[in-house]
């Protein structure tokens, strides 16, 4: 049975960041770390990155491409794209609700 991103335990947040990074095109490990640091300010460590990559690969959300030297790029699959969309929609809902409640409090 397919899981949701937030069911990946301590790898949920890194997985979401990785999927968001790969939504911009295939990337290898180091490029992902740099990209994630740029768009989210989160410094992802290498052990966590590859722990999350293994889980994402197992779920079929990402797939490895042919390696370039020792660096293997990964890309988002169709399943990964829908998992990311679903998760982002939920988060969007949370953000919208949270912001509106904050606005009520502030007003």
């Amino acid at each position: 049975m397919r899981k949701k991103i937030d069911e990946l335990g301590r790898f949920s947040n890194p997985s979401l960041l990785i999927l968001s990074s790969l939504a911009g095109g295939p990337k290898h490990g180091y490029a992902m770390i740099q990209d994630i640091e740029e768009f989210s300010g989160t410094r992802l460590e290498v052990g966590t990155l590859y722990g999350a990559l293994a889980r994402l690969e197992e779920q079929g959300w990402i797939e490895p491409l042919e390696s370039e030297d020792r660096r293997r790029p990964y890309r988002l699959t169709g399943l990964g794209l829908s998992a990311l969309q679903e998760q982002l929609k939920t988060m969007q809902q949370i953000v919208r609700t949270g912001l509106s409640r904050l606005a009520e409090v502030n007003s």
Partner: protein
Amino acid sequence: MKPTFIHWCALRLLCFYPRAWRARYVDEVAAVLEQRPATLRTVFDLLLGIFDAYFHSELFTERKFVMLQRLRDSQLVIYAAFACCAFFWAIYGLLNFYQPGVPDYDLTSPAPAYSFVSPLVWALGLVAVLSTLLGGCAFLARALKQSFARDRRNILPFICILLSMLIFMQFLGALYLLVVPYMNAAFLKVIWELDAVAFLAFGLLGIIFRVRQGIQAGTLSLRFVRPVCIPLLLALLIIALLFVTFSPNFTSYAFSSTRKWLFLSLLLLAFVGTISSGVIFVARWLRRVEYSQSFLRFTLFFAGVTTCALLVMSGLLLYETLIIDLHVSTLGSSLMRVPLLNVITLCIALPAVIACLALRRGVHARRELQQA
């Protein structure tokens, strides 16, 4: 990036991950660590990762990717074992030709009954050579095709290093010409000199192309440069300089009594450097290529034939050596050749056993792939 103690710790920690994890990710993680300075947090994160990898081993084992890697590695080990066996087999054969200063055991008493061994060993050796050529060439052709498709410049260092290794094998093979009756010594000298120059030239070119390519792509590994390239380049440059300076009388200059040991040690360093860097380079090259499941299943047949031939061949050679041992000991004579034969036979048998273990691993991986 200057490697720090923490960086060293982070790299060492990778050795503690499960084998399947390492087979799948270690190159990638090492590449990331080379580009990004490790901190204490990285080390702690990698430590946590070790526990995670052991507790969730299902994520890394019995996966098609790992099985394919295992199938590929087992075959590469078999071909490497064949190269090792072939080298010592050549020395074994030469020992039968050269017997400086020792009486022939066969002349002192009736010959022991091992005459059937030699033709069998030659036949099996031929089978092993043919199957290795077929399987090995398939691997090389696939590697060349993929590298050429990726970038044409990729194949230059590969071809140069491969040529230098082939010339080295030809250099060893040329030793057999010494036993051909009426062989012209001057002709042999020319062949060896040409071999030595071509070997060193192609080896040097290969290394230079590889280093240049690595610098351009920013992927040059210090592990490759430090132990192999630096002594090799130094030795090659010194020899090249000597060769250019004294080319008309190079051999007599180099082999004069005072400079003989210096030149021979430099030559040995250059040969060992070229062969070791060549082997590392070709092995890493072949491991980077993507092989399909059908390709690996097909080539496993040739690797299997090579292994069986090597195993039977080494068994026969062990039998022959045992007979010689017994024969010589009953004669009560001691020949320097006999312990040497024992050592060389063991040097042939050991890679054959390694090839056998690798084949077992390969067959197991193939079966798991079929089940998957």
